[in-house]
């Protein structure tokens, strides 16, 4: 099987595992989520007809009325049709609509922040490794401490200092609420203005890991024979650094992207909450606080799919930047 096929198969397996986990968790844990949801629905003046109950039961479990297999098949069927149920915290909106509204905010914020952090961290790490023995070395201990700072704590400190204190940035939100969401320059400007501080939080907290990993790999790569050959060839320093040392040193950072992305996503959820950002992380917490189980599950699935998708893209990219991977796949 080729490298790409194997990767695809792996991520499909992971997706299936996540979907199944999502099915099993509410059935295994204590509590009776369906009853809680129905009670909530009633409070909100929703219909308490048997159809609504059946929909929730498919999602969360019938409590033994039907066999596991039947429930599982019905659940998978609903997922394939994109039916994730009705949200009680945003009643009468459907879960899929709530997610659809929140998702773009998170994808843009977390996606951009991760990309900036990766590029900056890897770039700085390459330079720090290349210039080893200069004052740049002192960046290394500083960044280790920075990467151990809790995201939300840093976020709140930044808000206190830059928003409350200096008034440079808004306190919270994703855009100026007097504006109507749309693709006009005023709204986009407002969204960028509101997104800067959350993005800054994510970048500051996650950059240390990239920097450190890249720096260490760079130091190792610099003592490789191909770098010596490049020096003997009389190439310019910048060319040796970029095309020979960094080009090889970056591979482990890309290969370890999955692990790092997990940290960033986790941190982003909490960061969104601090900034009351209209993204999927805030919605997840809103769902948890309101026992909106259907929304909770839907969001977990969407986050998982997004993370799996991002990892798949990075893995495919890895195949492109390291030819050895593509050819080795037949062996391992």
């Amino acid at each position, binding site marked *: 099987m080729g490298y790409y096929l194997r990767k695809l198969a792996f991520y499909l*397996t*992971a997706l299936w595992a*996540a979907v199944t*986990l*999502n099915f099993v*968790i*509410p059935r295994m*844990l*204590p*509590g009776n989520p369906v009853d809680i949801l129905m009670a909530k629905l009633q409070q909100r003046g929703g219909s308490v007809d048997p159809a609504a109950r059946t929909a929730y039961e498919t999602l969360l479990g019938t409590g033994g009325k039907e066999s596991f297999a039947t429930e599982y098949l019905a659940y998978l069927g609903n997922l394939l049709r994109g039916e994730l149920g009705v949200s009680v915290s945003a009643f009468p909106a459907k879960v899929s609509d709530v997610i659809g509204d929140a998702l773009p905010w998170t994808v843009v914020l977390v996606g951009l922040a991760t990309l900036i952090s990766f590029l900056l961290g890897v770039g700085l790490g390459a330079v720090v490794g290349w210039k*080893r*023995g*200069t004052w740049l*070395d*002192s960046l290394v201990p500083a960044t*280790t*401490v920075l*990467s*151990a*700072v*809790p*995201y*939300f*704590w*840093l976020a709140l*400190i930044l808000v*206190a200092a830059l928003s*409350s204190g200096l008034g440079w940035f808004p306190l919270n939100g994703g855009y100026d609420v007097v504006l109507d969401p749309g693709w006009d320059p005023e709204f986009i400007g407002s969204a960028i203005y509101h997104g800067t501080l959350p993005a800054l939080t994510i970048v500051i907290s996650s950059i240390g890991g990239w920097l450190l990993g890249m720096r260490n790999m760079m*130091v*190792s790569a610099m003592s490789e*024979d*191909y770098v*010596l*050959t*490049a*020096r*003997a*060839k*009389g*190439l310019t320093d910048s060319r040796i650094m970029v*095309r020979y040392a960094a*080009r*090889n040193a970056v*591979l482990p950072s890309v290969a370890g992207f999955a692990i790092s992305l*997990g940290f960033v*996503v*986790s941190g982003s*959820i*909490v960061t969104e909450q601090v900034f009351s950002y209209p993204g999927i992380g805030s919605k997840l917490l809103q769902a*948890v606080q309101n026992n909106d*189980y259907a929304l909770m*599950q839907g969001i*977990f699935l969407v*986050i*998982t799919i997004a*993370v799996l998708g991002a990892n798949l893209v990075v893995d495919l990219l890895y195949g492109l930047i*390291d*030819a*050895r991977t593509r*050819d080795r796949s037949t062996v391992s």
Partner: protein
Amino acid sequence: MTWSGKLVTGLGLAALIVLFGLFGPLFTGDPATIRDIGLTPPGGEHLLGTTLTGQDVLAQLAHATRGSLWIGVLVGVMATVLSGVFGIVGAYAGGVVDEAFSLFSNVMLVIPGLPLVIVVAGFVPADQRGTWTISLVLAITGWAAAARVLRAQTLSLRNRDYVAAARVSGERTWRVICVEILPNLLPLLASQFVFAVVLAILSEAGLSFLGLGAANSSTLGTMLYYAQNGFALQREAWWWFVPPGLIIALFGGALALINFSIDEIINPKLRDRARRKRDVVAATAEVAPAEPGAVLTVRNLNVVYQGDNPVHAVKDVSLTLRRGEILGLAGESGCGKTTLAYAINRLHRPPAEVTSGSVTFEDVDVLALGPEELREFRWVRLSMVFQGAMNSLNPVTPIRAQLQDVLRTHRPGMSTPDRELRCAEVLRLVGVDPARLGAYPHELSGGMRQRVMIAMALLLDPQVMIMDEPTTALDVLVQREILNEIKRLRDELGFAVVFITHDLPLLLELSDRIAVMRDGEVVEYADAEDLYLRPQHPYTRELLASFPSLTGEPGALTR
């Protein structure tokens, strides 16, 4: 900071925080006592001030640190056990079990942890969320990365001889794992444990801050939760909000520093090193009256590896390379022949230093060249072929890019089609099909890679080529072909060669003159035929005697 400085700082900080969590609560009194002195700034009676309800922040901090450390240790232990089971046992068992365990670890690794924890915490009613429940969930979502690392390490250990020996001798599986494998994994397990503890403390803080932590627990996260809900920052009560986060950051930073210095101890390459200002110290700028016809003249060259015990690797070496000549440099490994070759091109790396002597290339004083002049000198006039072509070629770019690099840098005016033509031409010279230009190094055989290296060295028509054991890693037939190639090219193109090897018989056949090196000194320097027929130095005789002749008579080579 040196690695030991980092280690001491890290250990000291971590120890302070642990001691504070262990013993702090004994001295600080009841953290829950409510007084009517809300939000008192730090000072006198309350060293870190008070909370909104007048509780002592220092007392709360001590208890919260203890709570966070407890959860960290719980999760650390559970996650390490899980990663051990799935990483070590799987890799040791091999076959289907390994496949399944490894797939499971990888799947758990790519499913994002915190969202899963939040969902689970959301389903479990708040009154049933105890410290153990939260710890278990954090452990289940946090072991996979460590398992992957352990698996890789176990796989390599599993194939070591002593493990294989234990298995063949019929020891039980669990005994082999516990006695032969686990002790070797201990450093790795320790560092994974440390990471798991930090990750758990961070994740728990996040969960508690969101109000999803363990019920009735007191951790740094819950403290931050109350501080946030008491609008600590809005009321400028920084003493309430800053310390808990700082403890988390410092603890994480301290453990990261410890891990960092352990890395540096294991891998000396990573250690801090003062940047060397010069690679050449006190070279005598004597322009040697070069012998007529000499292209490269080395006079009294000394190279020292500076350090606590300086090693004098090249001692007063003088050599002359004539135009079109093949000069053999023979000697055992470690005799300084490679160091000498690198020093000629000033490629020697710190801590090696040229302490005195001169290297003259026609009219160029090589040791006096500035960095930019040196760069322009390299490869144009003197190129090199290194030993082990696999590692000398950049593994991630096709050989075309590595050949063209040279032309791009040294012949900036050359057009793209001309570059391509020149690359194809040199490949043809060494007998490699130009169609292989697009190939990556790993797609070529060892002999092909070595030929590509030689082709690369020919690109700019240099006057001198230094070849450092270019054929050692190859089998005899390929070696023979490449040697013939080198001779033919020398005859056709007229460059001079410094050929370095430990293989004296090979040099006798190939070289015009031979220098025998021992412990950094040239002990004998003569025409190949003279050296063979009338070796002067006892070491040369010894070397010649150590190679059997084709007739099988030991020492026959010396006659």
